[in-house]
């Protein structure tokens, strides 16, 4: 990324640059489309960024940084926030010392996700302020505001992006101003940070007072934009929808909200009073609609059929016209993605198909094993679920069917949330045993070839300690752990399925897209090591 005063940046790049300039001491996260490029860019432009094994750990690390007086950024896709929800809810109680900004990158329309959950609900559920930028310029400006807000009220801030913000490039102009750096130093605050019930009760009250104060601040309109044109139609909106609104109804009045929790309800009421008809335009759930109606205000909203998928200017036009259905003409779907030519997973799914296995699948490129010609996946729910769901199937199915059940998970997904599934397998073994396949292609392929703890390289591809999945599995107490090439998988799987054992087969071959890069990283590491030994 080339840094200048006027740039064409994706929302993710804009967040990374703003994080650097607002003095974020550490950015952490787990790769997930559409959030991944934030930390990659932060690392590339000189910030400190690292991948964690999963989002829960990332958020906990970020919270520790912020307890220490350093500024922290945690990034994840929308479903990643489910994984991080446990620390999230209580971090709202503890509050923070220096800024903690949590990026939730939602995926309305599911361009690359298993659901289209609307994470604005998390702001209300956890009681955290939430900021939503409408383009890259706002992603940059509002991020700086998020850091200030977090430090003014000592509270974590949710920064909600959507696919069209993350991955759209728009013009960003900035003067390059930076915030003074934070200086970490330990400050003891036992009552504030040790959430035993007696202290947590006080913390909950503190949280609600902070939210009340933030709501008042939001009424001042620092992050809102009111455009009063034609008073016959007013539109309340936020995020990228505001851009679709401008396009679909250029003459309408508009209240664009930047801080969508807690809402500036007086400002909203005033806007509604100023226009004849007021329509709320929002993607996904009726989040603004429900809150505004609960406040007793009269607004129009989209019909239920617009809850599904993302909005665009055409759909916004239909919503404003009060249409019930989004698309008049059903369109042909595009060509679905498939496993790359030469992908090592192809072999695996051909064998699973031929052996008529019941496949409890997981999240990653290999989920494409569900597509023809393989159609060799029976379940896929969330990160790590292949193990638990596979075990449940084994426990419950008749023995002849249970013996066909195989859990299939990738290397990065295994590190993310498969390890506890192995522990469950050893603790509560099914009568027929179980077989787990780790498809180890040496990278987090689906999100664009990121490193993870089992690759032995950090986010920026330098050497770090490597977690050995086979030694980990052995220590947990499985009956057999084997490492095979995809070509040698069939006999190993056949033998494992015939036993009543707990078996792990690691099918190891690098991703075809990553293999060349991995060789380069390793070559660079070897050269660095040679240089270092020479200097000693």
């Amino acid at each position: 990324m080339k840094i200048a005063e006027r740039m064409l940046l994706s929302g993710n790049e804009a967040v990374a640059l703003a994080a650097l300039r607002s003095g974020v001491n550490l950015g952490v996260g787990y790769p997930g489309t559409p959030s991944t490029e934030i930390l990659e860019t932060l690392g590339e432009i000189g910030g400190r960024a690292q991948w964690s094994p999963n989002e829960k750990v990332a958020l906990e690390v970020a919270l520790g940084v912020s307890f220490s007086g350093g500024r922290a950024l945690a990034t994840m896709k929308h479903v990643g926030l489910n994984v991080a929800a446990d620390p999230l809810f209580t971090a709202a109680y503890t509050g923070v010392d220096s800024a903690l900004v949590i990026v939730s990158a939602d995926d309305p329309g599911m361009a690359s996700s298993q659901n289209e959950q609307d994470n604005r609900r998390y702001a209300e559920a956890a009681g955290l302020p939430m900021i939503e930028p409408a383009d890259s310029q706002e992603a940059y400006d509002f991020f700086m505001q998020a850091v200030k807000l977090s430090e003014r009220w000592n509270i974590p801030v949710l920064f909600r992006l959507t696919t069209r913000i993350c991955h759209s490039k728009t013009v960003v102009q900035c003067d390059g101003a930076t915030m003074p750096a934070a200086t970490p130093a330990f400050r003891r605050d036992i009552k504030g940070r040790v959430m035993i019930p007696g202290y947590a009760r006080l913390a909950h009250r503190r949280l609600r007072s902070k939210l009340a104060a933030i709501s008042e601040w939001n009424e001042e309109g620092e992050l809102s934009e009111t455009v009063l044109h034609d008073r016959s139609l007013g539109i309340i909106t936020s995020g990228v929808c505001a851009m679709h609104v401008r396009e679909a109804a250029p003459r309408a009045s508009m209240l664009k909200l930047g801080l969508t929790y807690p809402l500036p309800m007086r400002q909203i009421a005033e806007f509604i009073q100023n226009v004849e008809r007021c329509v709320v335009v929002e993607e996904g759930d009726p989040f603004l609609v429900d809150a505004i109606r609960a406040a007793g205000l009269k607004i129009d909203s989209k019909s239920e059929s617009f809850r599904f998928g993302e909005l665009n200017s055409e759909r916004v036009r239909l919503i404003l016209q009060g249409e019930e259905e989004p698309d008049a003409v059903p369109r042909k779907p595009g060509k679905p993605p498939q496993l790359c030519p030469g992908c090592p997973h192809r072999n695996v799914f051909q064998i699973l198909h031929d052996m008529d296995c019941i496949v409890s699948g997981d999240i990653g490129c290999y989920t494409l094993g569900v597509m023809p010609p393989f159609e060799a996946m029976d379940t896929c729910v969330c990160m790590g679920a292949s193990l638990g769901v596979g075990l449940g199937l084994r426990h419950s199915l008749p023995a002849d069917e249970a013996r066909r059940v195989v859990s299939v998970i990738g290397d990065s997904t295994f590190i993310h949330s498969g390890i506890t599934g192995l522990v469950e397998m050893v603790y509560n073994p099914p009568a027929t045993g179980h077989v787990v396949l780790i498809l180890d292609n040496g990278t987090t392929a689906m999100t664009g070839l990121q490193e993870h703890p089992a690759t032995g390289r950090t986010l920026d591809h330098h050497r770090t300690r490597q977690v050995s999945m086979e030694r980990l599995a052995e220590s947990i107490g499985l009956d057999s752990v084997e490492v095979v090439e995809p070509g040698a998988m069939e006999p190993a799987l056949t033998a494992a399925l015939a036993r009543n054992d707990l078996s792990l087969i690691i099918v190891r071959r690098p991703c075809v897209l990553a293999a060349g890069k991995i060789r380069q990283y390793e070559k660079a590491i070897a050269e660095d090591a040679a240089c270092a030994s020479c200097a000693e």
Partner: protein
Amino acid sequence: MNDIVTNVVFAGLGGQGVLKASDIMAEAAFESGFDVKKAEIHGMSQRGGSVTSDVRFGERVYSPMAPVGGADFLVVLSEDQIEINQHYLAPSGKLLSENDLRDVKLPHPKSGNVALLGILSTYLNLDESIWLDAIRANLPEKIHAVNLEAFALGRSLNGAR
């Protein structure tokens, strides 16, 4: 301020250089001083599936997504992707596709995206030098020559019609 926005939709299959072409187009418009918005979908689409990317430029652009029926240009890198994207094209819009390159020999089989940009460039009023800089800025140095050749080839094609 005029509200004329030029809409270009790029379409093809993952791996064909759809996103690269839209990046070059967006940068050329940006360096020409326009407001630019570029939308794309990554992720699953990288795996050989359908990919589209919209580039919109003008004095002021709002939505990053080109309106259905509003694309001034639809640039398609794979013939089988024309039908599913045809609805983007404005009635007066121009379709540019693989078919426009059928009679020429590309300098490299993967340079079709840049050759189509060459044709597209003849319809847009942007300086050639800005296009060339955008190509250089978005591609690794070792493939600059072959892509600049593909671009020149595309530019020469329109003159023939």
